């Protein structure tokens, strides 16, 4: 897709747009040819307003009223609300995603590529988006949807292409395939993707983490969490379902990365934390795997670092967690997202922490890497680690959790069942 959008030049082969061979030197050539792309990792300028981001890359005079009207019109058609004069810095992840989509439409694209567009949208927004994509396709446009959610693909696509390890393994009209055959094509073998919960050991009654009447105010004094009390036991997976943004302070609190404004926390000594924004918060892309291994809890080290030992630990994690890399000396940025995440999980679990906190640990990963990550999480649970996992994918929560906490400003506990969680979340939206 990066090739189609002019971000990478192909080594061989040709690209044709409407039958005409083209050569893209940069994304602006691709935009000029009518191709629009909605990126998974946002490509917006935080310090500019919504309207300015839409106008970016255009030519001639910038008329803010005209662009703003255009933003409102397109957003309205999509059933989305966006203030054209808000700075992108102040937008939530889902609003940024909406802006990416609006911008693509604003560039008069005839072919739109969407890379995992639903990852951070609410169910209602996702519905509106697909309605709009359908009417765009009916009016002669083409849509390429990259997704790991098989249901989305099955429900909305006319045709499906499955790529595995850079090869095209399936290309067929959607009516000829079903969920099982799609999953088979993606995995290369039949596998139950929602593997049933198999506990090896019962939940232990030892409390690992306890919060008593904890409240959190943010920098400007707005209450983010109110009077929360909860207990996490050794050897259980506790799912967190939350409206976008609400889980962030709670997870950082549990992982010991943030102090509460009031209330008591009893925390274990060793906590593993896998934050959502991998390239910003958990690894340093320009550092080698070995250096990234040394990064964990590096504040607690003193004196000289024992590099030979860190090298050995890295090699050990790489082999045990099946991290595909040329060597432990490779730069983190040169690994695929799935392998980076496997490495991070291995690093955080390496000293057998009593508590592991995960934030959207499989976001953007392919189905294979996701399955591996899930396996590791279950294994750690069976070995007695207490696990807290937040995921915006309710199916993932339902598949992994022993119980689920639904977080608004207060907390409710539900069964790990997709529909129960969903209803409980919806009841907290207003």
């Amino acid at each position, binding site marked *: 897709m990066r090739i189609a959008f002019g971000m990478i030049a192909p080594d061989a082969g040709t690209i044709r747009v409407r039958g005409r061979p083209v050569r893209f030197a940069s994304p602006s050539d691709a935009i000029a040819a009518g191709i629009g792309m909605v990126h998974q990792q946002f490509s917006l300028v935080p310090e500019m307003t919504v309207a300015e981001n839409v106008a970016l890359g255009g030519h001639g005079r910038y008329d803010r009223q005209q662009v703003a009207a255009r933003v409102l019109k397109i957003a309205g058609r999509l059933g989305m609300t966006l203030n054209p004069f808000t700075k992108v810095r102040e937008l939530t992840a889902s609003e940024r995603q909406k802006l990416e989509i609006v911008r693509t439409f604003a560039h008069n694209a005839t072919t739109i590529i969407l890379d995992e567009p639903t990852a951070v949208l609410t169910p209602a927004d996702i519905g509106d988006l697909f309605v709009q994509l359908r009417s765009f396709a009916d009016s002669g446009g083409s849509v390429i949807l990259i997704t790991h959610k098989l249901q989305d693909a099955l429900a909305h696509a006319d045709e499906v292409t499955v790529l595995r390890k850079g090869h095209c393994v399936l290309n067929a009209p959607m009516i000829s395939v079903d969920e099982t055959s799609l999953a088979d094509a993606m995995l290369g073998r039949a596998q139950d993707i929602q593997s049933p919960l198999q506990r090896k050991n019962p939940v232990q009654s030892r409390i690992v983490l306890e919060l008593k009447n904890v409240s959190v105010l943010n920098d400007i004094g707005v209450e983010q969490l109110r009077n929360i009390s909860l207990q996490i036991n050794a050897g259980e997976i506790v799912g967190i379902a939350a409206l976008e943004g609400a889980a962030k302070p709670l997870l950082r609190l549990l992982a010991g990365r943030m102090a509460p404004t009031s209330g008591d926390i009893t925390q274990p000594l060793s906590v593993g*934390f896998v934050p959502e924004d991998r390239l910003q918060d958990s690894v340093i892309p*320009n550092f080698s795997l070995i250096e990234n291994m040394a990064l*964990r*809890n590096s504040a607690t080290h003193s004196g000289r670092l024992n590099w030979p030992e860190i090298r050995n630990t890295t090699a050990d994690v790489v082999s045990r967690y099946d991290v595909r890399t040329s060597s432990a000396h490779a730069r983190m940025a040169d690994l695929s997202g799935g392998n980076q995440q496997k490495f991070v999980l291995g690093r955080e679990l390496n000293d057998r922490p009593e508590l592991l906190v995960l934030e959207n640990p499989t976001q953007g990963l392919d189905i294979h890497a996701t399955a591996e990550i899930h396996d590791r999480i279950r294994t750690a649970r069976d070995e007695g680690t207490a696990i807290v996992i937040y995921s915006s994918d309710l199916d993932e929560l339902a598949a992994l959790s022993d119980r689920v906490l639904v977080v608004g400003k207060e907390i409710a506990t539900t069964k790990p069942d997709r529909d129960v969680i969903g209803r409980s979340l919806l009841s907290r939206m207003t």
Partner: protein
Amino acid sequence: MTAELALFADSVVRAVPLILTGLAVALAFRAGVFNIGAEGQFLVGAAAAAATSIKLASFPGVATLIIALTSGAIAGAFWAAIAAELRRRFHVLEIISTIMLNFIALYLISFVVRGPLQEPTHIYPQTESLAEAARLPIIMPGTRLHAGIVIAIIVAILLSWIFRNTAIGFRIRAIGAGPRAAQTAGMIDVERLSWAVFLWSGAIAGLAGAIEVSGVTFALYENISPGYGYTAIAVALIAGLNPLAVIISGVFFGALETGASALQRDFAIPSSIAGMTEALLILATLAFAGLRNRSIGLSGNER
């Protein structure tokens, strides 16, 4: 003594302040602290060294020298601390504040050499000369080459060793390369560490000023620095922020500037050619680094 040897010694003498201020810049940049204020820190370091050395003239020479060098480093750290505090408390960009502090330091020197520290006859805008015993020893007889080069090389080796081998050095590199990951995964107090690095960077630049006074000029006057603290940025960048490479790029720039003076004297070639060469080198280095980042950025994002 041959003229070639004297010229070589002059190049190294010129390189000493460039190496030390270059190390100050490299240390700060590695930690993501954009200390553009090596010039100002150099100047206050020089002033503090001159002041203590003159006021403590009754002390034994070696003691005076050590106190002068130490007070130069402390003054440099203090000057950096102003910008560091502004950054910590009010989020003032250190790029702006350190440049402003450079000018304040410059005019502070103008004031002291006309006021409290002016030489006894009150004719020239400079301090009296340092006592012979309180000067840095010459290590190559017959030339001006003083022991400052040894100090510069020791600081470079020490910094390099810290970066490579110690936990604190690793933390410094981590907060520069990925501050958020350093905070979240490394549990490092990024603000506090970058504050400390800022002060150490200022201390090294201040030490450079103290060494210049104690080893070369033996007095404080207005134009004691021909922009060492600014050239230092080029020295550090061309060395790729690697402390050992800073020695080489420092000597290179020292030779360039010394050579340019000789060219002007002997062949009437304008010495500004050295400045032009320096600027071209910086542009070439930055362009090369930019190109490399661009190709890495594209391939690095591939999934």
